[in-house]
């Protein structure tokens, strides 16, 4: 059972500001969806290994070489606010 408090907590973790109406809707919908997913709990998966990757890939590495850097203007080109060569953000606290 997902409570309104759960929804508020999860929204905070995901940095989403929800309106009262949205909290209402998401509480209901998450309950619907997760309620449907309860079926999973019926399955006994005690001895089953989780699959995080479908391919048996392992040990993929790159060599320690330095490549081309981006021109700084490219790095900053899309940023919403800048101060000379820095990304600018509102105060932290």
């Amino acid at each position: 059972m997902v409570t309104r408090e759960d929804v508020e907590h999860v929204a905070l973790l995901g940095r989403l500001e929800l309106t009262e109406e949205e909290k209402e809707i998401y509480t209901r919908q998450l309950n619907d969806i997760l309620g449907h997913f309860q079926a999973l709990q019926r399955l006994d998966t005690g001895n089953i290994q989780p699959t995080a990757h479908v391919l048996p890939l392992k040990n993929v590495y790159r060599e320690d070489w330095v490549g081309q850097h981006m021109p700084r203007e490219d790095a900053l080109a899309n940023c919403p606010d800048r101060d000379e060569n820095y990304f600018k953000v509102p105060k932290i606290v």
Partner: protein
Amino acid sequence: MTNYETVIGLEVHVELKTRSKIFCDSTTEFGGEPNTHVCPVCLGLPGVLPVVNKTVVEYAIRAALALNCQIAGFSKFDRKNYYYPDMPKNYQISQYDLPIAGHGYLDIDVNNEVRRIGITRLHMEEDTGKLVHQGTITTTPYSLVDYNRAGVPLVEIVSGPDLRSPEEARVYMEKLKTIIQYTGVSDCKMEEGSLRCDANISIRPVGNEQFGTKTEIKNLNSFKALYRALSYEVERQTGVLNKGGRIVQETRTWDEREGVTLPLRSKEYAHDYRYFPDPDLVPMIIDPEWVEDIRRSLPELPDARRERYMQEYGLPGYDAGILTSTKELADFFESCVSAYPNPKAVSNWMMGDLSRLLNAGGVELTACKIKPAQLASLLQLMDEGIISGRIAKTVFEEMFASGKDPGDIVKEKGLVQISDKSAIMAVVEDVLAKNPKSAADFRAGKERALGFLVGQVMKTTRGKANPELVDKLLKEKLLQEKL
């Protein structure tokens, strides 16, 4: 009043000095104009993917082996999710339940007692960018972000809760730095942030098994700060408990200027890192042969080296400890001893004159102009009687300043010792003639007068006269005339 025992655990972050970052090919070089050491990957642009730098894994294993850790057969990267503007993806690629290494230890010497401190785990992760504030983080109207450091490889080394005093914590940290530097995987420059430390500290009544509530102290940017912050925190926590209060589990920051720890003003945003395996990266199956190759390539580590200096060179423990405190110092020492096999003499010069000049000039040994072979030949010149000990000190200072060979300096400045009996006798006679009172004093039994006369002879010869010969000739002459 209850007696309390202090319990400290340290989380140390070490930046690895690979050429490129952990997940992309941007440089790890320190400094650089803001936001120039970046690429789409370390800026976290939409669509980019990480690829692990193999040398990072190798360096992590290297550091772990030096700390007596066991290397995992299977390891993986996880995402640690939290929001902060210095973190390009708002998750940090780190390692959670299957770190590359753990179950290690290091031994520290405190008050001539060896204490074994556990290394719980060592894992790899990426560094964040840097925030620049106008003034302090609390007063700045806005902040600026530089992502040059984002993605620089780190290992985090977590100790067990085994440290029992701020002094032990400091010694542990110094020892850890020494060992890591020996392995060559990091510069461990605290001032550049390539060695950083957070501390967990709690106190408990002596005899209690159960840990007290801990606080986490951040911003410990020097050995001194570590020691002072922990000492302050011990006092603060003791004070709170003695007044019947409760320790609040919180993160505190060390205020260097005020000499206090302060709670970090975080608006209680529930911390839930939601670790999960990074789907963009694949598992690492660590080949035991690779680990053995790395083990074989490790240099002799400080403890073993110190022991050997005591056994092989017959050095006192104190000397051996200092000479092995950095790999550079120990390498210098050994290289010098191989050319001049009198370890105690070399040790004395290194711990005396060399270290004095380095400290006075604020020079690192690696930047020192004197090479080991040059110190050896200086000592040789003394042994051969070509220069006196006093002249040697002058020559050494000149070597330190110019990097010239001692033999050349001696030649250029005409500092060769005068051992010609007749030449010295002439000076002796002259000095005695000019100082009849001192001569009379000596003859009257005042031994101290001799020293003055020797000094006068040395002054006249600008220190070049063979001191033993001066002594001998003066005495001869004085006694002769007495007869």
